[in-house]
């Protein structure tokens, strides 16, 4: 600790250079924070997908429906403990940019299959007793300032016209990655109102709960075989595979993010390494004086590494702090990334990267300083 003032004094002998280096690390770690947040958001469904749930959709495409009658037939398959369904509604709230996912759900089974969404019994019962009732996730409720009792109009895009809903419940996820942006209403309400248009008697997809996750492959195959050669053939996969496939539609984001991250890390190493190399080169005679006074090789090594570490950790903390503040203001895309947050684990990972950069970038200059011969160093005065 007694060397810290000395380390700080050295850091600020070239204020502009130090500030610029700290700034570049801060920008890089800010970028890192945003990238991992986006990566987390895109894979949120994959990370929290239930291992005991399968998604059954129309084999042709996700937008093609399946008959309502499949629910009973799915329940009869061995190992299936429950089958629920939902239909994509695709309504617009005020403006298209106010996007959030809306599902018409089977109120009898949905809560059983998705126990991770927490709703009080009183609110759930209020939702059940109101045909125009809706349940909304906390993120979306906070985003639009909705509260229980509010009446919300949505402009239908698939089933046109104005649809009005009463907010009866607000749900919260029990895990950090749970999607709290969804909007649910009763499938029966959808069914009633669309009788005059199209899609009656169908659902968007089924979510099947299985008793034994080890049986997932067998059950998947059984389901698809059961409905093969019918008018509505199915494609079944685990919820995780379904979510991953959804994320992959945007491309290999993880690979892209890893590549950008690696380039950023490498650039950081060069920037910080260059700063430290210059700092040591300029101070060779001083390092010689320190050694003359009795500072050991390891102490000199420590002093140089400490400077590098301080630059990296201050820059890292600044960058990650800015990223945290940015993500705290919520999804900047207006609903495309509902799970948009920078977790403590990722912030710690960012700090670990910053510390690694500090150590790696400082190591060569520090070793150079450590191995300096006093007589050679003093000769450069």
């Amino acid at each position, binding site marked *: 600790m*007694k*060397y810290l*003032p*000395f380390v700080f*004094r*050295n850091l*600020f*002998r070239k204020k502009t250079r130090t500030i610029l280096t700290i700034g570049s690390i801060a920008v890089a770690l800010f970028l890192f924070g945003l990238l991992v947040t986006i990566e987390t958001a895109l894979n949120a469904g994959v990370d929290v997908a239930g291992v005991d749930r399968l998604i059954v959709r129309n084999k042709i495409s996700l937008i093609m429906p399946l008959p309502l009658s499949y629910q009973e037939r799915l329940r009869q398959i061995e190992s299936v403990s429950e089958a629920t369904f939902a239909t994509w509604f695709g309504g617009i709230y005020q403006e298209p940019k106010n996007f959030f996912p809306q599902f018409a759900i089977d109120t009898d089974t949905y809560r059983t299959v998705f126990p991770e969404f927490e709703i009080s019994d009183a609110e759930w019962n209020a939702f059940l007793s109101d045909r125009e009732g809706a349940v909304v996730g906390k993120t979306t409720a906070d985003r639009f300032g909705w509260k229980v009792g509010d009446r919300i109009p949505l402009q239908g895009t698939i089933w046109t016209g104005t649809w009005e809903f009463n907010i009866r419940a607000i749900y919260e996820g029990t895990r950090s990655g749970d999607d709290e942006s969804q909007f649910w209403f009763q499938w029966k309400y959808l069914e009633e109102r669309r009788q005059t248009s199209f899609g009656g008697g169908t659902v968007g997809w089924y979510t099947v709960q299985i008793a034994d996750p080890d049986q997932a492959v067998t059950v998947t195959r059984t389901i698809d075989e059961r409905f093969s050669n019918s008018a509505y053939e199915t494609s079944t996969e685990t919820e995780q595979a379904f979510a991953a496939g959804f994320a992959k539609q945007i491309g290999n984001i993880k690979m892209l993010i890893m590549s950008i991250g690696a380039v950023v890390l490498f650039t950081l190493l060069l920037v910080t390494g260059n700063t430290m190399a210059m700092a040591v080169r300029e101070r060779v*005679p*001083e390092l010689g*004086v*320190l*050694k*003359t*006074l*009795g*500072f*050991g*090789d*390891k*102490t000199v090594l420590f002093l140089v590494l400490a400077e590098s570490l301080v630059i990296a950790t201050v820059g890292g903390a600044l960058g990650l702090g800015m990223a945290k503040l940015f993500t705290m203001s919520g999804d900047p895309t207006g609903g495309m990334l509902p799970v948009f947050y920078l977790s403590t684990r990722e912030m710690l990972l960012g700090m670990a990267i910053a510390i690694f950069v500090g150590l790696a970038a400082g190591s060569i200059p520090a070793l150079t300083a450590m191995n300096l011969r*006093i*007589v050679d160093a*003093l000769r450069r*005065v």
Partner: protein
Amino acid sequence: MVDIDGKEHSASLIRVRNLNKVYRRGGETINVLQGLNLDVEKGEFVAFMGPSGSGKTTLLNLLGGLDTPTSGTVSVDGDEITHMSGRKLASWRARHVGFIFQMYNLIPVLTAFQNVELPLLLTKLSKAKRKIHVETALTLVGLSDRMTHYPRQLSGGQEQRVAIARAIVTDPTFLLCDEPTGDLDRKSAEEILDLLTELESDHGKTILMVTHDPLAAERADMTLHLDKGALVEGAS
């Protein structure tokens, strides 16, 4: 008493025996010091003179444990330093040697106080005790009112006095001065020499000084000349 005959002297603080230093540059071998002997008692003030390249600074570096000899031994107060490891030697330097350089070699980003405190950071002294030591040293060199000044805010003579305070703050066994007045005007040089003389006479410090300046050498108890790698006695 200072001797260069190599005979045993029980009272020697610094004892150098058959010291050789050979540099190899390219294919050329340069014998800087050849079989040098020296005995210096505690409280002596010795000046080393000689032409450039005669090995004065090399001798000082060897006496201060900054460099290792090709052969021969250097003992200080019974400790033979020529075979010490780098770590031991650094710790030995911190305890026993005070260095004063021609260019002062202060750390520019530290105040006079912090520069003088540097060697004390290597000790186990508390912050409060370090402060007392630093203030004492700076008062002794007449700079108690310049403690918070940075080197750039001091004159050359004042900078050298800060360097002397840094050299004596740990109360080392002896002081090594490499051209301490070489970069100063006459007046400042005289002040520094007065200070060194005072350190010897009033505080019993052993001082070994390399200089080109005959006036500076006059302040020493004895002047030794380095000629072709060997010591020759001069005026005392």
